[in-house]
């Protein structure tokens, strides 16, 4: 079924002669074409079971999962990355997704003391510190506040972090899959903080979760009052347990660690707490041994999700959809360029929709592949004019030990047989 016969109509922008030359180069495709051309397809000529019998009733799946043929589109972990699976990470199967919205069920997880189960009844949110009235909210209180709905990406600060010293993991899921993009519904922090009455001396907001790790982080009050929100819905439904049910923080454009899950407390303060998650972790060590702290924004970045190591070209020569994702914590994506020769020449890709601020943007590049080797790259530009750098450019400034914030251009080496590999190029 997947080996549909190639014909002239399917060949965009090529000549009959070019097509024949291409098919001749891949003998199996030629045989398949000949066979399918000569023999009626039984999937068409014979009545199939699904065309005769009955499917499932409407009560078979009150809440459905993907069809079993999509069982490879799942979160995966890399066991050697962490000491255990509790304070650990898994990866979104971005190689197999399209569009921009991440299905919650396969959207990556990062916990520091596991995914906790916290009911709406047991949920409490406290606002204290430099406020006129320290407050406690129930979940029901939050649902009565004026609501907003916005779509943002959440990217782990460590996404692509294993690639600093070289090409290491073979697949966009593993190199770039610490990311998801959801439509969130909730309440702005401004609304919440106004209820408590933030005092003028409060320049920081310390936020922490209900889990054992607490994941406490300090956020400048300016950012908190600008565009941060709490969310209780994502992609239309309640947050998943592993994503902070019933309430998480949304910090647009900023590193995922700040998006505190199971949010239980916000404290207005006049100084940062300098918690473990902003000293020991989420600080970026430079080549000279000093370290950046408070590297909150996630810079412009992109990756080709297909073809990629987990998405080899299996259809032979001819039309090929090159696609990927771009995003920036600084603003909206305004363009993505694609290179097929390792960065010698670039051509603009097509955005599926205009980029929106701090959200994933899908790009497509339609190519007529003739079995040539490619060094495939993508390069994002955002609304501030920032252009995604190469790894060499980043290393020149930062060295190789900064762990976080690796937004370098990724290269896939696509071989004549259609397989792809994660490589670095000069």
């Amino acid at each position, binding site marked *: 079924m997947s080996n549909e016969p190639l014909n002239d109509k399917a060949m965009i922008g090529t000549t009959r002669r070019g097509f024949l030359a291409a098919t001749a180069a891949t003998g199996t495709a030629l045989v398949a074409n000949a066979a399918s051309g000569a023999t009626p397809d039984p999937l068409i000529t014979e009545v199939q079971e699904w065309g005769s019998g009955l499917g499932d009733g409407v009560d078979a799946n009150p809440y459905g999962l993907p069809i079993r043929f999509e*069982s490879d589109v799942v979160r995966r972990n890399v*066991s*050697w*990355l962490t*000491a255990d699976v509790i304070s650990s990470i898994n990866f979104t199967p971005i190689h197999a997704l399209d569009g921009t919205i991440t299905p919650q069920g396969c959207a990556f997880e990062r916990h520091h*003391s596991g995914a906790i189960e916290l009911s709406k009844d047991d949920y409490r949110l*406290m*606002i204290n*510190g430099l406020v006129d009235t*320290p*407050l*406690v909210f129930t979940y029901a*209180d939050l649902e009565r*506040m004026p609501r907003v709905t916005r779509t943002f990406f959440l990217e782990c600060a*460590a996404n692509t972090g*294993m690639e600093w*010293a*070289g*090409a290491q993991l*073979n697949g966009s899921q593993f190199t770039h899959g610490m990311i998801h993009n959801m439509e969130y519904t909730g309440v702005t922090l401004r609304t919440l*903080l*106004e*209820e408590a*009455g933030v*005092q003028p001396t409060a320049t920081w907001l310390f936020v922490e979760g209900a889990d054992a790790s607490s994941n*406490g982080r300090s956020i400048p009050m300016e950012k908190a009052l600008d565009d941060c929100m709490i969310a209780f819905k994502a992609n239309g439904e309640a947050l998943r347990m592993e994503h902070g049910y019933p309430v998480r923080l949304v910090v647009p454009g900023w590193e995922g660690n700040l998006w505190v899950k199971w949010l239980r407390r916000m*404290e207005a303060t006049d*100084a*940062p*707490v300098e*918690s*473990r998650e902003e*000293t*020991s972790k989420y600080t970026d060590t430079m080549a*000279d*041994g*000093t*370290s*950046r*702290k408070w*590297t*909150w*924004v996630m810079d412009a970045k992109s990756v080709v999700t297909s073809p990629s*190591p*987990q998405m080899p070209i299996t259809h032979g020569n001819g039309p090929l959809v090159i696609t990927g994702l771009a995003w920036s914590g600084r603003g909206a994506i305004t363009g993505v360029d694609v290179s097929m020769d*390792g*960065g010698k*020449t*670039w*051509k603009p890709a097509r955005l599926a929709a205009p980029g929106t601020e701090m959200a994933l943007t899908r790009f497509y590049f339609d190519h007529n592949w003739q079995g040539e080797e490619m*060094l495939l790259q993508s390069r994002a*530009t955002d609304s501030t004019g920032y*252009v*995604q750098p190469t790894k060499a450019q980043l290393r020149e*400034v930062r060295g190789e030990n900064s762990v976080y914030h690796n937004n370098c251009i990724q290269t896939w*080496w696509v071989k004549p047989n259609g397989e792809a*590999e994660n*490589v670095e*190029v*000069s």
Partner: protein
Amino acid sequence: ALAGGLGLGRAALPEEIAAWDKDVRPDGVGLPVGSGDAIVGEEVFADKCAACHGDFAEGVDNWPKLAGGMNTLNRDDPLKTVGSYWPHVSTLFDYINRSMPFGAAQTLEPDEVYGIVAYILYSNDLIEDDYVISNENLAAFELPNAAGFFVDDRETTEYAQFSAPACMENCKDEVKITMHATVLDVTPGDPTDGEGAPAGASGEGGAAPAAAEPE
């Protein structure tokens, strides 16, 4: 103050704030009254921490090392510990008090936490074993890497360079592959079907190369 008008929520009680607001700042604000030294701390550490972090805070298997690594931050593979990397003792107290032991957090008394803090400082050769750490002197204790951090400077060190007009044609003369992921061979294989799995996937449990923690 910002004016709220919804009238939702209720005033938090002092007992409730005290129960949840436990964070400790570098200036010592938030520290509970208490004290401890490494002699006491060693016993608590042996009982509640050493199974993962080692008898001398040196770390067991892949669990975090809390001591050692002095002067390694500018090397290829820096060892970042409390002694070699952390800027503030307050963070040590705060984190242990709220989130350790792993799996049984918030079970330590303040004096136990002070003792563990002292033991970790002792394990990093920063104090003698009878040196008493308390709410009085903790904030004044300076760790070796206290001055090792600076605020994000990407706006000045990177933005100008990375916002130059992008090259579209003849951007370089030659391109060579300099590194292959399949040489390292550390990517998990596809757990469901094996088809289309990353080439050369070795499956789980292979020897781990020098890799960044996904933090």
